[in-house]
C-alpha cells in the first residue's frame, strides 16, 4: 500500500523494542474512559500480566499503530497528556507554549547558522539540504503543536485523548504501565475475540474534515463496537457521554420520550437479507409482499380477513399502528437499545443502512477511482455520480470534490490559484507551469516547507494513508513527537515530506485528492 510508511514503521521498530503491538489499542481505549476510572486507580494489581509490553515482536498486526508507537516513544516529556480527561489544563498549555518557544528559538538558531555560513563559504549541498530538512521538520512540529494547543482550547475538543485510542494506550504504557496492566488482566480474552474493524470510513471522511469533533465520535463508536459478545447485563458495556453526529441514519432530531414507542430489534441475518417487505409486528422480512401477508395471519385473526389478505390499499389500516422504532443489534452501538443514550432508528431501511454502514465491510469499490469503498450500494452510486467529475483542482495539485472547498483552500494559501480544465490541444503545463512554480515559491517562501510536486508518486499514497485513518487527524496524534526535541534526523520521520496533509483545519479537505485521484 504505502511503502514509505511501512518502511518507516519498520525502522522505528528496530530502533526501539516496541510496545504492545499485539494488544489492540482500541481495546484499551474501551476501558480507559471516565466510567472505568475507578478500576484503574487500583495500583499494580496485575502488572505482570501484561505480556505485550515486554513481549517479543509478533506478527505485525496493526501497522498504523507502529507509527504511533514510534512517535509515542518520545512521549515522556509531556506528562500532562496522561490525564485522560484533559479538558483544558493550564499546566499543559503552559508547557506546550514554553515548548513552542523553545522550538522556535531552536529553528531560529539553525537558520541563523545557515545564513552565516552561506555568506562565508558555499557549503556542501548535502549538508545544506539536511539542514533544510531539519528546519522543515521543526516547523512542521511547531505548526502541529500550535494546532493541538489551540485545539485543546476548543469546547468541542473535550476529552481529546479518547479520540486516539492507540495514542492513549501508548501514553499509558509509557507513563503508567500498571494502569494498563489492570485493564488487560480484567479481560484477557479480548485480544483473541477482537476483530479489528475497518475504520477507514471514507464516507465519514468529509465530515471528519469539517469537525475534528466528529472524528472523535467516530472513534468512540468504533471502540464500543469492539464488544461483540454483547451479553446483556453480564458485563457493563462501557458507555460514554459524547455528542453523536450521525448523518447517515434517520432518527436524529427526533425526541420521542422513551416508552412512547415500541422498540423492535431485528436480527443481523434479517437485516442483511435482501428482503424488502418487513413485518411491522415482528420485523421478519420477506422478498414478496404476498408472503408477508401470509405471514401476518400468524399474528392474529384480524389479519386473516379477505381484506387484509388482498393487496393493500392505502387506507386499509383503520386503527393507527403503534409507533415503532428500531434498534441496531450491535451491542454498544448508540443505536442499540441497551445504550445509555439510545437513539432509535426510524424505519427498517434506516436499520439496514445503518447496520451496513457502521458494522459491515465496505464491499463495493468505486470502479472509477478504485479507492472509495462503500457498504451500501446506493452510496456507491451517489459517489459514482460525482467521482471523477466535478473535480476542483488547485494549482498546487490538490483536488477537491466541492468548489467551495477549493475556494477556501485558495483563500488560505497565498499564490494558490484554481487550475482550469485545459483543453487537450494545449499542453497541460504550458500555461499552468508559471503559476505552479510561483505557488511553490510562495509556499516555500512563506512557510519554509519543501513542498512536493504533485508528480511524485509516493506522496499521494502517504496522504491516502493519513486520510483514510481518521485518527490521524486527531489534534493530538502528533504530540508525542514533540517529546524528542533533538531527534529530527530520524529516518522514520516521513511526515515532513508533506506537512500540509496534517492541516485539515476544516476548510480544506486535503484527503479528498487522494480519494479521487
Amino acid at each position, binding site marked *: 500500500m504505502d511503502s514509505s510508511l511501512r518502511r518507516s514503521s519498520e525502522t522505528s521498530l528496530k530502533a526501539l523494542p516496541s510496545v504492545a503491538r499485539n494488544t489492540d489499542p482500541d481495546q484499551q481505549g474501551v476501558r480507559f474512559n471516565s466510567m472505568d476510572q475507578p478500576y484503574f486507580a487500583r495500583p499494580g494489581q496485575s502488572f505482570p500480566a501484561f505480556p505485550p509490553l515486554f513481549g517479543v515482536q509478533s506478527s505485525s498486526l496493526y501497522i498504523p499503530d507502529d507509527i504511533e508507537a514510534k512517535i509515542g516513544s518520545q512521549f515522556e516529556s509531556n506528562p500532562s497528556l496522561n490525564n485522560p480527561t484533559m479538558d483544558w489544563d493550564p499546566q499543559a498549555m503552559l508547557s506546550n507554549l514554553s515548548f513552542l518557544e523553545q522550538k522556535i528559538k531552536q529553528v531560529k538558531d539553525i537558520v541563523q547558522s545557515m545564513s552565516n555560513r552561506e555568506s562565508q563559504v558555499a557549503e556542501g549541498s548535502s549538508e545544506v539540504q539536511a539542514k533544510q530538512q531539519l528546519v522543515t521538520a521543526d516547523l512542521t512540529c511547531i505548526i502541529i503543536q500550535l494546532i493541538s494547543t489551540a485545539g485543546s482550547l476548543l469546547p468541542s475538543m473535550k476529552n481529546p485523548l479518547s479520540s486516539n485510542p492507540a495514542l492513549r494506550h501508548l501514553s499509558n504504557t509509557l507513563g503508567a504501565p500498571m494502569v494498563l496492566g489492570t485493564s488487560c488482566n480484567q479481560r484477557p480474552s479480548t485480544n483473541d475475540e477482537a476483530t479489528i474493524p475497518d475504520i477507514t470510513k471514507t464516507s465519514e471522511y468529509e465530515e471528519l474534515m469539517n469537525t475534528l469533533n466528529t472524528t472523535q465520535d467516530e472513534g468512540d463508536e468504533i471502540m464500543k463496537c469492539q464488544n461483540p459478545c454483547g451479553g446483556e447485563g453480564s458485563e457493563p458495556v462501557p458507555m460514554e457521554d459524547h455528542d453523536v453526529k450521525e448523518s447517515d441514519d434517520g432518527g436524529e432530531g427526533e425526541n420521542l420520550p422513551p416508552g412512547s414507542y415500541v422498540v423492535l430489534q431485528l436480527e443481523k441475518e434479517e437485516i442483511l437479507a435482501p428482503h424488502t417487505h418487513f413485518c411491522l409486528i415482528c420485523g421478519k422480512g420477506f422478498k414478496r409482499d404476498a408472503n408477508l401477508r401470509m405471514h401476518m395471519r400468524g399474528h392474529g385473526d384480524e389479519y386473516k380477513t379477505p381484506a387484509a389478505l388482498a393487496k393493500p390499499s392505502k387506507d386499509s389500516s383503520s386503527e393507527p399502528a403503534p409507533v415503532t422504532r428500531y434498534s441496531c443489534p450491535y451491542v454498544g452501538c448508540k443505536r442499540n437499545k441497551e445504550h445509555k443514550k439510545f437513539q432509535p432508528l426510524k424505519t427498517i431501511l434506516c436499520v439496514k443502512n445503518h447496520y451496513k454502514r457502521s458494522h459491515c465491510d465496505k464491499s463495493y469499490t468505486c470502479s472509477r477511482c478504485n479507492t472509495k469503498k462503500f457498504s451500501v450500494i446506493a452510496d456507491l452510486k451517489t459517489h459514482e455520480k460525482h467521482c471523477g467529475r466535478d473535480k476542483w483542482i488547485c494549482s498546487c495539485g490538490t483536488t477537491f470534490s466541492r468548489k467551495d472547498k477549493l*475556494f477556501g483552500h*485558495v*483563500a488560505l494559501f497565498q499564490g*494558490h*490559484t484554481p487550475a*482550469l480544465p485545459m483543453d487537450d490541444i494545449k499542453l497541460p503545463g504550458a500555461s499552468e507551469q508559471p503559476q505552479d512554480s510561483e505557488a511553490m515559491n510562495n509556499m516555500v517562501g512563506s512557510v519554509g516547507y519543501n513542498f512536493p510536486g504533485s508528480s511524485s508518486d509516493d506522496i499521494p499514497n502517504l496522504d491516502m494513508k493519513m486520510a483514510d485513518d481518521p485518527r490521524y487527524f486527531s489534534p493530538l496524534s502528533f504530540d508525542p513527537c514533540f517529546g524528542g526535541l533533538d531527534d529530527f534526523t530520524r529516518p522514520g520521520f516521513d511526515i515532513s515530506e508533506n506537512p500540509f496533509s496534517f492541516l485539515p483545519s476544516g476548510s480544506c479537505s486535503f484527503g479528498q485528492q487522494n480519494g479521487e485521484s
Partner: protein
Amino acid sequence: MSEEETQRYGGGAGAGGDGIGGLSLDLLGQVLDRVREPRDRKSCRLVSRAFARAEAAHRRSLRVLRREPLPRLLRAFPSLERLDLSACASLDDASLSSSLSGIRRVCLARATGVGWRGLEALVAACPRLEAVDLSHCVGAGDREAAAVAAAAGLRELSLEKCLAVTDMGLAKVVVGCTRLERLSIKWCREISDIGIDLLSKKCLELRSLDISYLKVGNESLRSISSLEKLEELSMVCCSCIDDDGLELLGKGSSSLQRIDVSRCDHVTSQGLASLIDGHNFLQKLNAADSLHEMGQSFLSNLAKLKDTLTVLRLDGLEVSSSVLLAIGEGCNNLVEISLSKCNGVTDEGISSLVTRCSQLRVIDLTCCNLLTNNALDSIADNCKMVERLRLESCSSISEKGLEQIATCCPNLKEIDLTDCGVNDAALQHLAKSSELLILKLGLCSSISDKGLAFISSSCGKLIELDLYRCNSITDDGLAALANGCKKIKILNLCYCNKITDTGLGHLGSLEELTNLELRCLVRITGIGISSVAIGCKNLIEIDLKRCYSVDDAGLWALARYALNLRQLTISYCQVTGLGLCHLMSSLRCLQDVKMVHLSWVSIEGFEMALRAACGRLKKLKMLSGLKSVLSPELLQMLQACGCRIRWVNKPLVYKD
C-alpha cells in the same frame, strides 16, 4: 529641421510657420496636448513636420479603427500608453502579439475575435499593464480571465458581459491581480457567492466593484463589507439581495461613497436606511426602480447624509410632496436628482424640493406627467445651474415654462422634450440657450421648419438632435440646420417622411456627423445616400430600414465613400446581391449589419457578401430562413471570428 523643410511643411499653414520649427519637441508636445479635437490635431500633424514629430514622440493614447495599420502605428508612436481597440475591425489574436511594450491601458471592448492566446501575448508583452477592458467580449470565459490574471500589476479590469466567466475565472483574476482597484463583473451570471467571497479576501485594494445582474445573494454582501477601501458598489438588478444584505453591508467599513441598488426587487427603504446608518459619507445613491414605498426611517436617515449626498435617484417610486419636501430639507447639496416615472410628483413637490436644493444641475422628471409650467418656473427661479433637464412625456408643459428655463438657466446643455407636444414658439425661446448640446424633440409633430430655423440660428454647438417622427419637417428645415449647427454628430430623422434627396444633400455639409438614422424615409433614393456618404466622412452608423427606394446606387456610394462606417441597417431596402457584395467587401470597418427582408438578394448574394466580410463582422441580423440555406462552413467561420447572428423568425421571400 532646416528652414527649407519648415517652409515646405510649416509654411503652408500661414501664420506661425517660421516659429514652429524652432520650438523644441517638448513644447510642441505641450501645445498638442492642448488641442482637444482629434481633427485639429490631425491638421497640425499634416501641415507641419515638426508637429508630426512632436506628436510621434508625445502621443500617449491611440484609438485604432482597423487591424492592418496597427503594427505600423505602434512603431510610429513609441510612447503610447493607452490603446483603444474597441472599434478595431477584424482584430484577432495574432494582431495583439505586436510590440506593445509601453502600453498601460488597453480597451478591448467588443473585441469578440480575441481569445486567450491573444490576451496571453498581450499581457506578456506589456509588463506595465494597468487596465484592461474586456467588456462585451461575450465569448470570453475563464481562460481569457486566466490570461489576464497573469498581469500582476493590473489595477482596473472590466469583464462586463464576458458571459462565460465563472467563479474559476474570477478566482484566477483575484489571485493573480491582487492590486485590483476597479473591477466590473457585470452580467457574468455564472459567478456566485463563493467567487465574491474569494474576491473580497484577495483584492483588499478594491475601490470600485460592479456586480450588477449577478445571481449572488446576501452572503456576497457580507464578504464585500469586509473590503475596507471600497468606495463604489454597483449591484443593479441583483434580485437575490434583500434588506438583510444591505444591513450586513451597513455594518462593514464605512468607506462607501457611491452605491447603486437600482432594480433590486427585494430591497426596501428599510434596508437602505440600515445601509445609510453604517455609511455616513455616501455621495451617490441610486435606488431607481427598486423601492416601492418611501419609509420614514429612510427619509430620516437621508438627512444624515446632508453634507455629502449629491446624487439621488428614486425612479419609479411613489413620491408625495411631503417626501420631496423632506428630501429637500435633508439633502441641501444635491447636484442630481432623478424622479423619472415617479407617481405623485406635483408642481408643489418640485417647488419645495428646488427651493432647498439650489445646487441642482441634473433634473430628471421623465414621465412625471402632472407637472405644469409652474414646476419649470420654480426650477428656473431656484436652480440657475441646471445643465440637464429631462422632461419626456410631461405633456402639460408649454412654451411659457420653457421660456423661463431658457432665460434663467444659461448653462443648459441638454433638454429632453420628447413627446411634450412643444411647438415652434417653444423652440424660439429655447434658442436663447446657446450652450445647448443635446436636444430631443421626438414625437413633437407640431414642430416645423420654422422652429428648426430658430434652433439653427443660435445653437451652434448642438451635437445631438432627435427629430423622431417630427413629420412636419421638410428639406428646408434641414437646409437651415446644416447651415447653423455644423457640429452635429448624432441626428435622428426617422419617419420625417417629407424629407427627400434634396434634404440629404444639405446634410452632406455636416462633416462631423457620425450617426444618422433615416428610418422609413420613403422618398430618399441612392442619390441622397450618395451625397451623405460623400459629405459626411465620419459616418459611423447609418440606419436605412424601410427606405424602400434606396437601391444599389446607395450601397455603391457608401462602399466608395463611407470608409468609417461601422454599423449599417438596410432591412427592407431594394438592394441586390451585387450591391451587398460590393459594400461588404469594400467597407473595412463594417462590423454590424442588419439585413432583414432583402428580398432582392439571392442566397448566393448573401453567401458571397458574408464571405467577403467574414473576419470583420461582429453582429448580424438576418432572416432565420437563411440559416438552413447558407453553407454551414460559412456560419461556422463567422462564429469562429466572434460574430453573433440574430436570426429573425419571419418567412423568407424571394423576388426575381
